[in-house]
């Protein structure tokens, strides 16, 4: 057990050649040169990041409270039902919108699922002494609800 172990002979052979050392030196010197060429690049990057964080914090702190934000926020663009005046005669009022229906038919056939909710088109005829006609246009152009109300006067 007291024998001398051959430590001095462990991995004595240089593993790298002169070409390896030259390549290593070239790589190291290239990186060193790059660092020297752009000494301020890292500082500039760090400054940009800090400025971005500061800006974000400033915006977050100076954001208006939620109740004010709600007031400022633009109204939602929900489509309102269109009200169109139609001729006083119920027969004409019923016929006029129906004439436009065939133009939309090819588009309807191409679309497999209606994407928009039914938008009722409310049409009220103005002559109080005659009759008031309400026309409700459904998403299906072939189906239209027409309500004729006789005036009490």
């Amino acid at each position, binding site marked *: *057990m007291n*024998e001398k*172990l*051959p*430590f*001095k*002979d*462990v*991995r*004595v*052979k*240089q*593993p*790298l050649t002169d070409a*390896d*050392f030259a*390549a*290593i*030196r070239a*790589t*190291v*010197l290239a*990186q*060193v*040169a790059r*660092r*020297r060429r752009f000494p301020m690049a890292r500082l500039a990057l760090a400054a940009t990041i800090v400025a971005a964080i500061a800006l974000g914090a400033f915006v977050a702190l100076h954001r208006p409270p939620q109740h004010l934000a709600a007031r400022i926020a633009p109204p939602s663009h929900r489509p309102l039902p269109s009200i169109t005046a139609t001729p006083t005669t119920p027969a004409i009022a019923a016929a006029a919108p129906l004439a436009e229906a065939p133009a939309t038919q090819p588009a309807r056939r191409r679309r497999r699922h209606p994407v928009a909710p039914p938008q009722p088109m409310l049409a009220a005829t103005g002559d109080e002494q005659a009759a008031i006609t309400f026309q409700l246009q459904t998403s299906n152009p072939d189906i239209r609800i027409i309500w004729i109300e006789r005036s009490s006067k």
Partner: protein
Amino acid sequence: MIVTAAVKTDDDGRSTALLLATIRAARGGDERAFEELMMATERRVALLAWRILGDAEEVKEAVQETFLCVFRHLGRYDEGRDFFGWLFSIAVNVCRDLDRRRRRRRIFTSIDDTPHPAGDESPDEAIGRRREIALLTRAIDALPEKERLAILLREVQELSTDQVAAILGSRPATVRVQISRARAKLRQWMEARRGGGRP
């Protein structure tokens, strides 16, 4: 450990004073001086890395990373310290990181890695000797990290216990204990292998 005069020389025959002058010039931004510094020290760094890692490709990476680290921290080098001690401590840390990152060490040493026989050895003796060296290399590779580094730096790299302690950041007494344990383990391991059994 303290550099006192130009009489002390390193393996390349370069005087310590000259080395110090090169270090100062490199620290001042002289790229040519830094290249000279690399040329003066790279072989020792590579050999140390080779002994720790046992893989030529990893050695390349370790040497490169060591010198980049040297460049970054050269300003912090204390001229009162042995430059090679400082350099080796960087190299050992780089090798440790590489070793941990890859979680593999070459356990099997090729017989070609062992030195060729001396002229006065018979072929049988030479084969036996090379087998012993290969066995010892395998045994060192199988040691726990701290003991492996301590025995490599003390016995293979032939540094003093104080130097090893400084490089590993341990106390000399701790290093002595680690080396003693490592020796015992190596002998036991090799005895078991020679006897045909497994430790």
